[in-house]
């Protein structure tokens, strides 16, 4: 390796370390915070704990409320992912395969949803959910989340589906396979990269969603974990160590999900770039 190359490598690795530290620093502080006392967090947030306290984590793990929140979040997120993938893929399949009057306009209209800020819709959404009698149910969160996730899902799916060779459908069609069967037997199995990509986006978004559950869920029974976390914020004091330990434990499933799907995500994002 030449000297210039070596310097360039060192610079590159240094830069990557700095960028990684932006992500890992707060994460580390969060994980470590769960082992500290509140006073220690206030004085030295980033250092290793002077005394490793495990009772905070243990306390949260032993709390049935924590597991209930986690379960609620999991049900809502999984349902949102499944619904978004199914509806989004079906809609995108139609846009990619069939040319019908107004398809371009309809597609543009759906894409407009990308520009619509979620927070602006929160009041009408609440009214709608209340009128439908869905308050305090999982559907109150699942349905709006699916609706808002669809624009991105359809946009990504359509591009991917459009790149599946047309002859594949024709070959199946000649054999007697119709559009719907083709969707289940060909489009979905051949689209795992993009399904994983969109699935992870939707899952993480739903997992971390705070505003919508806050507005439509009032019963503690139906709380998702971001709402459950609020119990550690008193009127006068915040139990930071509990909050941080809680956050650490609740982001774990999202991280696991991401790592599991990571291989496909990279393929999904670059899938359209090169033919191969």
């Amino acid at each position, binding site marked *: 390796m030449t000297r210039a190359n070596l310097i360039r490598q060192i610079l590159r690795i240094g830069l990557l370390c700095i960028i990684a530290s932006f992500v890992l620093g707060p994460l580390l502080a969060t994980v470590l915070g769960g082992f500290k006392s509140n006073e220690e967090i206030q004085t030295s947030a980033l250092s290793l704990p002077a005394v490793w306290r495990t009772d905070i984590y243990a306390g949260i793990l032993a709390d049935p409320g924590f597991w209930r929140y986690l379960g609620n979040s999991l049900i809502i997120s999984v349902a949102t992912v499944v619904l978004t993938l199914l509806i989004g893929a079906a809609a995108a399949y139609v846009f990619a395969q069939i040319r019908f009057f107004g398809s371009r306009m309809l597609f543009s209209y759906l894409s407009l949803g990308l520009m619509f800020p979620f927070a602006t819709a929160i009041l009408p959404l609440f009214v709608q959910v209340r009128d439908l009698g869905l308050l305090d149910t999982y559907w109150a969160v699942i349905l709006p989340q699916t609706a808002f996730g669809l624009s991105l899902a359809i946009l990504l799916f359509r591009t991917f589906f459009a790149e599946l060779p047309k002859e594949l459908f*024709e*070959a*199946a069609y*000649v*054999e*007697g*396979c119709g559009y719907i069967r083709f969707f289940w037997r060909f489009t979905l*199995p*051949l689209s795992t990269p993009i399904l994983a990509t969109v699935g992870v986006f939707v899952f993480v978004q739903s997992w971390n969603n705070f505003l919508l559950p806050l507005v439509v869920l009032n019963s503690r029974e139906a709380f998702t974990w971001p709402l459950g976390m609020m119990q550690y914020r008193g009127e006068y004091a915040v139990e930071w160590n509990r909050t941080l330990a809680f956050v650490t434990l609740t982001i774990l499933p999202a991280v696991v999900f991401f790592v599991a799907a990571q291989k496909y995500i990279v393929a999904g994002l670059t899938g359209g770039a090169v033919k191969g």
Partner: protein
Amino acid sequence: MAEVRLDDITKSFGNLTVIPELNLTVPDGSFTVLVGPSGCGKSTLLRMIAGLETPSRGRVLIGGRNVTEEEPSRREISMVFQSYALFPHMTVAQNIDFGLRLQKMPKLEREERVARAARILALESYLDRKPSQLSGGQRQRVAIGRSIVRNPKVFLLDEPLSNLDAALRGQMRVELAQLHRSLGATMIYVTHDQVEAMTLADQIVVMKDGRIEQVGAPMDLYDRPATEFVAAFIGSPKMNLLPGRSIGRQDVKTAGIRPEHIRVDGAEGTWAARAEVVETLGADTIAYMSAEGIDSITVRLPGHMRLKAGDRLFLTPEPANLHLYDEKGHRMEARA
């Protein structure tokens, strides 16, 4: 019986008419090749027989039955695509019996048919592989296997060999001819390669701009091309097309003579010519020559005649093998 007949078929895309009023009969059990330059409408024609395109007007009859409005799967046809269109997530066996599964055929019979197709196409040891693990020729065979298991009355093949390298193409050509002989089914084959057309077909259909220029047996087309276009298209190296005056006929627009029908002499002849480029192929020597009033004329000589660029020779076209064409490019029957 599975004769394919096209009655007054017209196909337009918007204002663009790709095929104007075309009639064609493909006899039962024949190997018919549709050939023509790209964009001549031959693939569109095949897709209309398959049912992937609907004709704007006219009727498609397969085995005497009007199938113009019928779904492809009910036409008793099968199709092999240029890109093979194998299903990438299925094994070879699953690819081959996909259509049979859709027909809800009993498992035992399905396995039997797949095994038979695999035996015919020498695919037995690849049945559990995915298409991505196969070579080009093997993929081609899987695509053919997929079409033969259904016992269709008519096979449609859309440039099936164009993605293969030259050596493999020659081999697959032989295999296709053998397959046709053993199955006895009607085959309609689209290609832009006149060599494939000549070697495979019992009947060649030469197309240009959506119209049929000539239909006939390969040697009929070779011996008596009906139009100037067919004369230029069929045969390799190409027929020489010369102005009528070069053979002393003012009433003739174009006179055609094949490279092998020109006599060469050192001392006398109709044209005094000079060799510009000489290609030695072994059995043959192809010489590209120029003569007075003629830019370029191709001559096929026996391989033992050694010729160098720059050599001067006399050329004489064999009068019996002259093809004469009028202003419209139609064949004139009176020989020179």
